[in-house]
């Protein structure tokens, strides 16, 4: 009898958790003391709805999204002058095979303290960031002036075309760079750009991706080539009061990129490329090559899935149409070729990755 009662109670709790509800719940844990100074606003989006298993050189298994989530929480706790938003996009799961569970988790930290932690649904028709933006705008500090704002995205390569199946739980739903850009509008409603954007993904450093996301950031750190799933290091974000002196974000970005590069160089045998893009300085180059790149994307978009399997990325410097005098303006690249393979003797990278059509 006790067991039946217990079972019913558990079932009711789970059924309640599965009921259709407004994704963003009321701010029951809304910040009560809004007077504490917020100097930094950090927004993490951690994609985990895919295969994120990797092995270190000792053969230990790691789940990339879980690892970066733990590191993001440490960053949040070690920043007494920051507000930190963490969105973890998880694979869909079910209770008793039938009852779907919420597949997004939101954490909000203010002044080093966890203020809110809520589960939310990601099962909307389009892969947008509306729910995340709703949380963000509900919790963010009232005044954004003088705040250093950062946006960090962790996940697999964000598709530049197609994009179906990016979320393994929603194979028919597409997510592309353009969808991310649309989502970023929701976080920058007051037209204040992010001071720093970090794309911890493979092939983020393309003219199209940087050009599409550029309107939302002053400085972008991305990997033009493959990026190992151990991602960029985020521990430079701990204790930002000490790391960013006089709000010199571009110098901080260089240090951030250098640290990630040095760590990856010690552990990774495949290609390592970390580039820092000064968005204003590279506008001229982007204008010069954007149409060429878009034409390539249009061509690729029309290809069948089978013929796309043979399409590869390459350094834009290997394609004459992209090699123009201002190519290196505003780009600082930390690069080391793979230690094995055909490209092991390629000693330089332009910082721009293209499609070898």
């Amino acid at each position, binding site marked *: 009898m006790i067991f039946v009662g217990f079972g019913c109670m*558990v079932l009711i709790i789970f059924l309640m958790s599965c009921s259709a509800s407004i994704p963003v719940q009321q701010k029951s844990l809304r910040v009560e003391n809004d007077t504490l100074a917020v100097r930094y606003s950090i927004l993490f989006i951690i994609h985990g709805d895919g295969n994120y298993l990797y*092995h270190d050189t000792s*053969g230990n298994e790691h789940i990339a999204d879980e690892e970066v989530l733990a590191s993001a929480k440490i960053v949040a706790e070690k920043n007494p002058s920051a507000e930190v938003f963490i969105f973890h996009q998880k694979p869909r799961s079910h209770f008793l095979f039938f009852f779907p*569970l919420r597949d997004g988790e939101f954490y909000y930290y203010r002044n080093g303290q966890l203020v809110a932690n809520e589960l939310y649904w990601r099962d909307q028709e389009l892969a947008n960031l509306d729910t995340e933006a709703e949380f963000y705008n509900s919790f963010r500090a009232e005044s954004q002036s003088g705040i250093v704002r950062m946006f960090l995205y962790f996940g697999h390569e964000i598709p530049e075309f197609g994009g179906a199946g990016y979320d393994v739980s929603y194979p028919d739903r597409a997510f592309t760079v353009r969808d991310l850009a649309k989502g970023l509008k929701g976080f920058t409603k007051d037209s204040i750009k992010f001071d720093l954007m970090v794309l911890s993904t493979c092939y983020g450093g393309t003219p199209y991706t940087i050009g599409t996301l550029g309107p939302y950031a002053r400085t972008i750190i991305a990997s033009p080539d493959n990026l190992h799933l151990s991602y960029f290091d985020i521990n430079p974000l701990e204790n930002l009061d000490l790391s960013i002196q006089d709000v010199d974000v571009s110098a901080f970005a260089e240090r951030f990129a250098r640290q990630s590069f040095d760590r990856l160089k010690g552990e990774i045998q*495949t290609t390592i490329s970390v580039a820092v893009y000064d968005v204003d300085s590279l506008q001229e180059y982007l204008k010069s090559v954007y149409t060429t790149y878009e034409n390539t994307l249009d061509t690729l978009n029309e290809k069948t899935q*089978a013929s796309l399997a043979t399409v590869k990325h390459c350094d834009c410097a290997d394609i004459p149409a992209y090699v123009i005098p201002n190519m290196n303006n505003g780009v600082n690249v930390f690069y080391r070729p793979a230690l*094995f393979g055909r490209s092991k003797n390629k000693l330089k990278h332009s910082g721009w990755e293209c499609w070898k059509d």
Partner: protein
Amino acid sequence: MKSLIAFGAVLLMFVMTIPVNADGKDELKQFYSKTADKVKATENADEKREILNESFNNMSNVLDKVLSSGLISESDRVGIEQYKATLQEKQNELEGINGYERVQDSQLNSFANYVVQDMEQADSTITISVIALLLIIIIVILLV
């Protein structure tokens, strides 16, 4: 007895909330990681080469079986052929053929790590469907 049943029921509930995203990629990644573990466990360079070669041959045979099964789509066929070609490049480098310098004996552990890291991020696995990946895994389990 009742407490045992209650414990079992709770355990079952946890099992039933496991995410449904088993797509076969984990098993492929583990295959290369286990190979690297074996390579690093031996001191003898010839044995290291043999382990790596055997691993490449086994996977290549599995891919051939899947390709000839007639159960896969055209895009899977292209994806698997690409994957196989990536694997063949690694084997060529190990042996020092087709324009590659032979991997030095002192570099074999590092090469084994490279194979793990490169195959874990291989583009071609992205284009292989879940069905084809599961087929590969089943044959790996049966034959290797």
